[in-house]
């Protein structure tokens, strides 16, 4: 089954990191991505620009309401994601635990709803 691993980290903490620490972190992400690609678990993934670049869109009564910033203010912000293939939740959890961001922030693991099920729901 497929899982989305969402990486939440404090942007304030990230902003405080030195450029040496940042490039070490990107190095770790590169290595991790290569590992899960070789093991056949990787489907996709991307880092996101910070929430200061975010825009929220809602449509109410057919009117478009566009506001700045993320949908909800939280301590940790979504900073990137991986889409993976795993045999079950336990495998997804052990892959999530290897994401460098898991040591400072948190990873939310969510199963992807198969399309047939989405139609039924």
């Amino acid at each position: 089954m497929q899982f989305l691993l969402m990486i939440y980290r404090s942007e304030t903490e990230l902003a405080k990191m030195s450029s040496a620490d940042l490039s070490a972190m990107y190095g770790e992400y590169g290595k991790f991505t290569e590992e899960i690609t070789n093991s056949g678990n990787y489907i996709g993934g991307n880092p996101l620009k910070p929430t200061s670049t975010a825009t929220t869109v809602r449509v109410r009564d057919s009117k478009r309401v566009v506001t700045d910033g993320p949908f909800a203010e939280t301590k940790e912000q979504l900073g990137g994601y991986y889409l993976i293939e795993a045999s079950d939740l336990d495998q997804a959890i052990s892959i999530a635990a290897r994401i460098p961001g898991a040591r400072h922030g948190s990873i939310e693991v969510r199963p992807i709803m198969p399309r047939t099920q989405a139609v039924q729901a």
Partner: protein
Amino acid sequence: MDFETFHREESGRILSTLIRLLGDFDLAEEMLQEAYAVALQKWPTEGTPANPRAWLISTARHKAIDRLRRNQRFERKAEEIAKTTELAARPESDQDQEMLADDRLRLIFTCCHPSLPMEARVALTLRTVCGITTEEISRAFLVPLATMAQRLVRAKGKIREAGIPYRVPSNGELQDRLDGVLLVVYLIFNEGYLASSGDALIRRELCAEAIRLGRVLCSLLPNQAEAQALLGLMLLHDSRRDARVSAGGELILLEEQNRSLWHQEQIQEGTELVQSALRRGAASVYALQASIAALHANAKTAKETDWPQIAGLYDVLLRTHASPVVEVNRAVAVAMAHTVEEGLALLEELEKREELGEFHLLPAARADLLRRLGRTSEAADAYRRALTLATNDIERRFLRRRLAEIESQRGAQR
């Protein structure tokens, strides 16, 4: 064995195997019910089969194949067809002892998966592994039946939808995951042992079920010292069940309990388990608490208790697992091991800490030490303070009784 006992003893095991074979909690439960219905019809006339467990598994499995085939006629779902084909193709002899033992472990680990909310883990373990009815669980936890039923439905839904696997964790994960399982067992036991209200019979049953789960874990994972420590702890606490509450439902303190009512065979087994766990390096909160319980259980009288060693164990607990209860118990142990004044000074230090301001055991313990020192007026004040904070009925009755005793003493002195 009569049918009722068989049902109680075996249902969890049979269900665990059916869940593995069918890959679906609800289907497994339903098919087992149907198999039981057939058994109730056939066994009295045709005789009980040589291996009733295998008979029930096989009957339920055939019922499931029929059910899935019938469903396919209406809605041909690829997934169901694949499942039926696989199920029908699997050899019937897929039931060797090791596989069956593993099924129980699989079920326990799945029900205690950390991605389920804690209260759902407890409920699902009691329902599925122990075979306790939803109604009994709802009564034990003082939750409306509909709420408990909903909790179980959601938990089973999450197992299915989130991809929670039905297997024993690999060696690398086992230790972490076992800690979670032990916590569920411990919570079930505590609910039975400490619960303030509710049906006394059901509470006793919860303790018995927790001990049974502890035994299953110890026999299936014989090298796990912490599982042994937990089983030892539960047996030692449970050994006092007939002495700790009076016929009128009054709480009786350890030092006032009639020790001849303690169950000696349980004390012996619990003590051996704790010793063996400690030799294997157990150092969890269970091992420490069990060591303390073993010292109490093996003392002939309250006076002869090895209080210095108990105080030392509380020191260790305080460093590794600090909590208000540990703080208070340590002060009481110091009072017993050294002088009452020394223990009282520790409690008074604790009272200065804001976060313990509402903790009823603190004034209750202080009242008891003041009473021992003959400072009755201060003791009475402390009992009154404890009464304003305590919510548990049994504890409140105990505090009121103590307060009345002290007040009548003071009246006599006047």
